[in-house]
């Protein structure tokens, strides 16, 4: 069953080459639902690590959680894209422009799945680089100067970062090959973890550092984050949602793998690197958020902040690990809602500047409301589920060091203030003229999907299905975090 998770995107990738984009959108719906079901099937009730496809791939609880997140968000995105394409075409974008949309998107999802499920670190690397390349042309989708420049930056920076990641893998391979010889086993994650204790710690730490800075670029950790706001703001909104919601987590998974290896070889202080980078990311994003002029960039910074928080959570350990893993899931959903609703705004107004948008609630009341709700949700305010995850991260942080936790909280408040002030300034005044007609030009899916994401986000605060909870708890146990 799990093999289908890789096979279906590959298949639809091929189909997309030969079908028209409108028909393809139906195929994509089916494919996404299928992938989602396959993921549910293989993920739920997962007892122990499952190795498949000749040992190159495996499924443990940690990547199962991320896989679930990816497939869930992908499902929503598929529906959204369905409406998005129709809306854009209706608004006068040529069909030709969308010709390769599904091709790249499926390639993107496929390489993401590959790197999530990869047991072999080399394959993980290939998958990650694949996501960069697949999204490169999606980032330049608008074919404006800004879009190309953003793409350039994106590809260049991520490639350099991932080259560092490759270096990390090389160095790791160097140490492990002393145990396993020149075989594929020496790159296999599960095998490396088994013999962690016997590895040369200096090299493991070196590779961990290289992986952290390398894949950290892709995660968007400061100060390697510069590509992130540009790419997120230029990509079509469904892709931004995927980029922000799951791609960053996929890269983070790579760092976590190296972290697991480092821990298994007995390096206890690796987590301080997590804490340092996480904290720096939160600080940089919190400070930068106030001078943003483009709302999609704004949300990109918010993604950064959340990735920083997640990294911080993994670093502090304990209950915070549970928080971080929950945050991965919740952030994906919530950020999805935000990017999708900002996609609605963009589709209608074709305006990215916050200052130019003054009357959002007048033009498109529902979208504006969803945008506001999503923004509030992303900052960890109940009744949105991110409250729970942030609370756990906070508990972890406070048991780590109360003063430090308080400093982190201060920056989170800054993020909150920045986001809210920017969004509210777009939100609109009642006195302004009302033009409801603009929202009705959207395909209904464009309204329903973000709304559904918000609803799911709220619902998850009050009810997390037991199999999912069990899965998450096992993932936490895999990372060595205690559960309250």
């Amino acid at each position, binding site marked *: 069953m799990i093999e289908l998770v890789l096979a279906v995107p590959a298949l639809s990738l091929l189909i997309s080459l030969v079908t028209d984009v409108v028909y393809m959108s139906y195929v994509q719906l089916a494919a996404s639902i299928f992938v989602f079901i396959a993921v549910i099937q293989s993920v739920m009730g997962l007892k122990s690590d499952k190795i498949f496809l000749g040992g190159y791939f495996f499924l443990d609880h940690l990547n199962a959680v991320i896989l679930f997140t990816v497939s869930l968000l992908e499902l929503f995105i598929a529906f959204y894209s369905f409406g998005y394409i129709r809306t854009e075409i209706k608004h006068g974008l040529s069909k030709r422009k969308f010709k390769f949309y599904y091709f790249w998107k499926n390639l993107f999802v496929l390489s993401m799945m590959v790197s999530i499920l990869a047991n072999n670190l080399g394959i993980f690397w290939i998958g990650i*680089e694949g996501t960069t390349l697949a999204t490169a042309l999606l980032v330049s989708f608008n074919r404006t100067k800004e879009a*190309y420049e953003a793409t350039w930056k994106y590809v260049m920076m991520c490639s*350099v970062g991932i080259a560092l990641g490759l270096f990390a893998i090389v160095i790791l391979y160097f140490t492990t090959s002393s145990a396993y010889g020149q075989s594929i086993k020496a790159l296999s994650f599960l095998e490396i973890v088994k013999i962690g204790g016997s590895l040369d710690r200096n090299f493991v730490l070196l590779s961990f550092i290289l992986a952290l800075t390398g894949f950290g670029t892709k995660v968007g950790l400061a100060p390697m984050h510069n590509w992130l706001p540009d790419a997120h703001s230029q990509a079509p909104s469904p892709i931004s949602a995927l980029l922000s919601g799951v791609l960053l987590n996929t890269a983070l998974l790579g760092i976590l793998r190296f972290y697991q290896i480092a821990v298994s070889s007995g390096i206890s202080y690796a987590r301080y690197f997590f804490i340092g980078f996480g904290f720096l990311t939160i600080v940089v994003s919190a400070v930068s958020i106030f001078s943003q002029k483009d709302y999609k960039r704004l949300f990109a910074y918010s993604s950064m902040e959340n990735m920083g928080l997640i990294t911080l959570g993994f670093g502090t350990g304990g209950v915070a690990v549970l928080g971080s893993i929950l945050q991965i899931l919740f952030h994906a959903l919530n950020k999805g809602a935000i990017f999708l609703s900002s996609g609605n705004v963009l589709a209608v107004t074709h305006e990215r500047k916050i200052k130019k948008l003054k009357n959002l609630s007048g033009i498109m009341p529902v979208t504006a409301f969803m945008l506001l709700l999503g923004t509030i949700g992303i900052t960890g305010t109940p009744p949105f589920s991110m409250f729970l995850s942030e609370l756990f991260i906070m508990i972890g942080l406070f048991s780590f060091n109360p003063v430090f936790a308080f400093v982190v909280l201060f920056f989170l408040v800054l993020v909150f203030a920045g986001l809210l002030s920017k969004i509210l300034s777009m939100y609109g005044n009642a006195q302004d003229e009302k033009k409801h007609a603009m929202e009705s030009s959207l395909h209904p899916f464009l309204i329903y999907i973000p709304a559904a994401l918000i609803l799911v986000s709220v619902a998850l605060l009050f009810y997390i299905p037991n199999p999912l909870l069990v899965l998450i708890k096992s993932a936490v146990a895999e990372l060595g975090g205690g559960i309250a």
Partner: protein
Amino acid sequence: MVRLAELFSVLILISAVLNAGSPFIKFGIKLYSFQSLMLALYTLMVALYSNTSALYLSFLFIILFKVVIIPYFLFNTLKRVEIKREIDLALGIPESVLFAGSLTLLSNIIAERVIKTTVTFGSLIFTISLATFLIGAMLMITRKTLFSQIIGFLTIDNAIFLAGNSFTHGMPLLVEFGVLFDLLAAVLILSLIIIHIKKSSLKTGLRS
């Protein structure tokens, strides 16, 4: 044979330094091609030394991708956008060369510090690999033309290959092939973007 391998590896470093010392892009691409050839030859030496069959294939791949296809694409793109040389340097040529030298020194220090176990090709290869890596990074940081940045990136990549093929006696072939393929795709895409950016403006001034 080890001596010969060391010669090739030193030539890799030299070509990287030369690259730092030249503002001409065409020359830079040619240098890269030469550098890749050296890498390939070095890989061949390692293959002969350790008699690993995978490395022979790796040698072939490197020749194919790095020496032929990637430079070819770059030349092609260069022809279409018509840039000859780097104009606006963040760091002057003499300074760059001096900097490249000091980076080599630095990497030697790090290598002496880190590598304590005996490695097949000694700490020299590690030094060279690290130095090439850092020079590539320096190229990327100081050069403003998109081509120079690509060349810098490719230099970094060569450095990693050098490291990968020397003291590990070759990565698993699957990985190596995937990496090369990704590299090719990256260069393709970057070339494409260069052409598009050229249409609007030459320099990367990303500010939205």
